[in-house]
């Protein structure tokens, strides 16, 4: 009896088994974790090949098929998200090896939590069922909270608790939305949503689910929990949270927008406004931030806003165009932000603190980490040829073609703000006249810089691969072709 494996099932189950194994055998957790990530990455590559060859693929679990059963489905977008998750996850894991080497207990719990998180995220990207999504985001939420408070500091715990409340409430809003969908449709799969008639229930469902997810994404003004949570977590956890976790909820929003008969133009404008608010407010707060990781966290708020601006307003024809810009920005942010958090963590480790004002007093300059930070900043600011640039290009192109000039202006303002706040940090890196001790004895190069540097280089280099990337994402035409 030979078991017939599907890459989709593997992408979800491998991390699950990995988590179980890592939990049972704490001492071997790191090797289990890395092996699992490698295997998962393999599964994702396998899946990508399938999708590349055959287009969107489906798997009816239990053989029942939707709506009674649950289907897994993979198209270009979901594979792209899976690939982002496993690639970034793999590199973050490598970085975590070094970053957690002096904290046995953190190391012990990091791996099972992270693998559970991976299970949840991969599950989200392959799911086609609303209730299943709810369960998945709960898996993600619990694992993510666990990672947030991994270092057990008071600040991390406080932030983690706020995160927990927000997370549960977001999930419950989503669940309530699911209830309304059931009331109206009697089924919960995406296919049932597609083509549904608008009704009060569906509107209620949409409102609840959207706000619930926005809370999980930390879209302004629901961002209140994010900066503290991301800034206080330990570096690899921050990288995962900021780079990957918020993307899962973002992905659900994209999917819902694909299948639900929403949103209306007014709502899109509202979403755009919230995004604009995030861009501006996040930028301003990042300018004020006193600690490096807090700055990076606020930049996440701003970048999420930018993604939503893209989502809402990067095109004339509703979402048929704009989702691509949003997807590109999601990918770009995922890679670059993970790199940046890891680099920030490295800098903090080497220097011993991350107070921006005093970074230039340190005689130790972790050059490579700083370089990585700068590269990631280039992508986040959106300078060519980074993927962030390509995303912003698509965003502005769509907005301009549609004549949405004020949204172009918002994007530009956000870019300028990001230049301003990142240049604060870069300036601190490059200033030497406040150092008392002789500089240059220890340049702070370490093997641990390899992972973030790779990520940062990927964030830059992927910009040149944008065309194939885009054509891959379009497999399965998530939002239909522009008519």
């Amino acid at each position: 009896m030979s078991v017939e494996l599907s890459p989709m099932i593997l992408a979800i189950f491998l991390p699950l088994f990995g988590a179980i194994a890592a939990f049972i055998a704490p001492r071997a957790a790191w090797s289990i974790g890395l092996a699992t990530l490698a295997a998962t990455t393999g599964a994702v590559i396998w899946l990508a090949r399938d999708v590349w060859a055959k287009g969107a693929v489906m798997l009816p679990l239990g053989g029942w098929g939707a709506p009674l059963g649950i289907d897994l489905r993979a198209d270009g977008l979901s594979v792209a998200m899976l690939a982002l998750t496993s690639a970034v996850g793999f590199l973050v894991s490598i970085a975590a090896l070094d970053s957690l080497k002096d904290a046995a207990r953190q190391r012990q719990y990091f791996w099972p939590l992270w693998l559970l998180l991976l299970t949840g995220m991969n599950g989200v990207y392959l799911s086609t069922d609303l209730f299943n999504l709810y369960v998945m985001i709960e898996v993600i939420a619990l694992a993510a909270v666990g990672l947030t408070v991994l270092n057990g500091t008071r600040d991390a715990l406080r932030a983690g608790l706020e995160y927990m409340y927000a997370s549960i409430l977001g999930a419950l809003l989503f669940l309530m939305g699911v209830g309304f969908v059931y009331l109206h449709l009697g089924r919960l799969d995406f296919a049932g949503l597609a083509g549904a008639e608008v009704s009060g229930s569906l509107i209620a469902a949409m409102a609840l689910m959207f706000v619930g997810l926005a809370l999980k994404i930390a879209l302004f003004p629901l961002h209140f929990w994010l900066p503290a949570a991301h800034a206080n977590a330990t570096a690899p956890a921050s990288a995962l949270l900021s780079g990957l976790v918020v993307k899962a909820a973002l992905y659900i929003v994209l999917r819902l927008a694909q299948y639900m008969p929403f949103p209306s133009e007014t709502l899109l404008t509202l979403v755009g406004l919230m995004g604009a608010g995030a861009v501006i407010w996040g930028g301003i707060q990042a300018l004020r931030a006193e600690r490096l990781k807090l700055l990076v966290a606020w930049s996440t708020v701003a970048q999420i806003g930018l993604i939503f601006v893209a989502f809402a307003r990067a095109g004339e024809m509703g979402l048929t165009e704009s989702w691509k810009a949003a997807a590109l920005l999601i990918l770009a942010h995922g890679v670059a932000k993970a790199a940046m958090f890891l680099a920030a963590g490295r800098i903090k480790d080497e220097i011993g603190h991350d107070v921006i004002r005093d970074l230039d007093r340190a005689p130790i300059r972790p050059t490579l980490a700083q370089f990585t930070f700068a590269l990631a900043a280039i992508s986040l600011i959106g300078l060519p040829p980074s993927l962030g640039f390509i995303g912003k290009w698509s965003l502005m192109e769509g907005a301009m073609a549609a004549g949405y000039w004020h949204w172009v202006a918002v994007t530009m303002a956000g870019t300028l703000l990001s230049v301003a706040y990142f240049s604060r940090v870069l300036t601190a890196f490059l200033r030497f006249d406040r150092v008392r001790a002789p500089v240059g004895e220890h340049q702070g190069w370490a093997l641990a810089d390899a992972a973030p540097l790779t990520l940062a280089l990927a964030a830059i280099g992927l910009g040149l691969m944008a065309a194939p990337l885009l054509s891959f994402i379009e497999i399965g035409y998530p939002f239909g072709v522009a008519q």
Partner: protein
Amino acid sequence: MSLFPFLTAFGLPMVLALSLTVPQGRALVWRMIPFAPLPALALALLAELPLNAQADWLILGLHLGLNDVSRLFVIFTGLLWCAAGASARHWMRDDPRATSFGVMFLLAQTGNLGLLLAQDALSFYAFFALMSFASYGLVLHNREAQAQGAARLYISFVILGELALFAGLALGAAQAGSFLLADLRGTELPDMAVSLLIVGFGVKLGIMPLHFWLPPAHGAAPVPASAVLSGAMIKAGLFGMMAVLPLGNVAYADHGTVLMAAGMVTIFAALLLGVQQSNPKATLGYSSVSQMGIMALGLGAGLMVPAAWAAILPVLVFLAAHHALAKGALFLGTGAFAAQSGFAGKLAVTLALLLPACVLAGVPASSGSLGKEALKAALAAGSSVWLPWLRVALTLSGVATTLLMARYVALLWLHPPKTPHPITPEGVLLPFLALAAASLGLPLVWPLLAQTLASPILEGASGAFWPVALGGALASGVAVYAYAQRIGPALFVSHLTAPFRAFGARVGSIMTARRRAARRLGHAVPKALGSTATSWRLGQTAIAGLIALTLTVEMRASLHLEAAIPPAPQQGQPSSQAP
């Protein structure tokens, strides 16, 4: 036609001059001096043309008359004498040598008006000489060393000129076989005669190299005298050429060439010399020289190509009138400036002076530019070889004049002209203003006065502004240079950049303050907002608010859709990829 009107025309001034010698009537006579040219003016304005009268009995047969051209000369000359007389009355009130001045003034006036009315060579010559020699007294009036030198120079040139004139007239008359100017004009005069005549009149005109006397003389003479010297009397030279030379009939290529070349040199050399003067009136004198260069251009062109003369003549007359009025105004204005004691008054007069100065420089639509443009047009009929040069010269003469005017105004302040004794400002101011107004209004009244002769002016273009602007710019450059020289280059550079530095510092301080304020604001406001939002837990409120908002928005949208277009087409059409 009776001789009488003519006799009154130049007789009145003569009579008045004689009366002045009688002490008892002096006050009354002085009062009448401004009105001395009135008979001539009345004659020119009212009489039917052409007008001729003769007295064979007088001298060798006196022929007087008035034609289109001379009439216009009489008008502006008379006007100028009126104004100068009015000015002189006040200027000379307390002057110990007022009587001598008055006599000379009136005699020169007699000569000037007389030569305009003369129709035969001898009387013309006589009047011309009277005018010239009488003017000697005007130049010498204040008896100072400078005036004596100027007068000496003047008289030398006058003598030279008279000699040449005499010889020329003589040769011409011999050739023509008549003393009548009209006959001279119709005869092919020998080259020698023409040369001599040109020299003779050229002295009066101040064409280079015969100009040396002019600026010192104009500088030395009292203000009213300078005005008539420069405004009226040098026009006699022009008038003389027009009256005597066979312009329009016979071609004198060589003479024309020389005259034009001299004119061109004159225009610019006068500039170079003029800007170096330190006496404002001398500068004005050079300006006159420069202007007469223009006249010489026209005359030369006429000499060279007779066919063009018909077009050139009216323009030259217009230019003469223009220059007479404007330059007269400037000279009188110099007096008015000197008479002012306060700064405000000086400033006001300076501003008023800028009007005739601009007219002279040829600001578009002023008589100066109209005349020059008309001259350019008229010259088109002349020598095609010379034409481009003439045009350039004429255009650049605007630059030259502007520079001279700028220098003049600067000198007014740097070396203010002195009055010999305190003078009632109003008395000299009014004639000046009258002349200035006349010079401004010339383009308007000229068609009425000149009738047919006005047409080239009316048809001409209004001229370009840039020569004046360029001249102004150069002048300011020179002024800056002079200033720099005076205070030293280093100090000058720092002065020059002071406004920049001040501006920069101001901007800098504003920017700094703004930036500081903005930074404060940029820090304080987000901080306050942020901490308020945190402590009030506004994020929580936002959750509820957003749900409520989304619900409302979507409900309304769906209501709209249902109302508007059933079955409602939706955004984000679901894909056909349903599993």
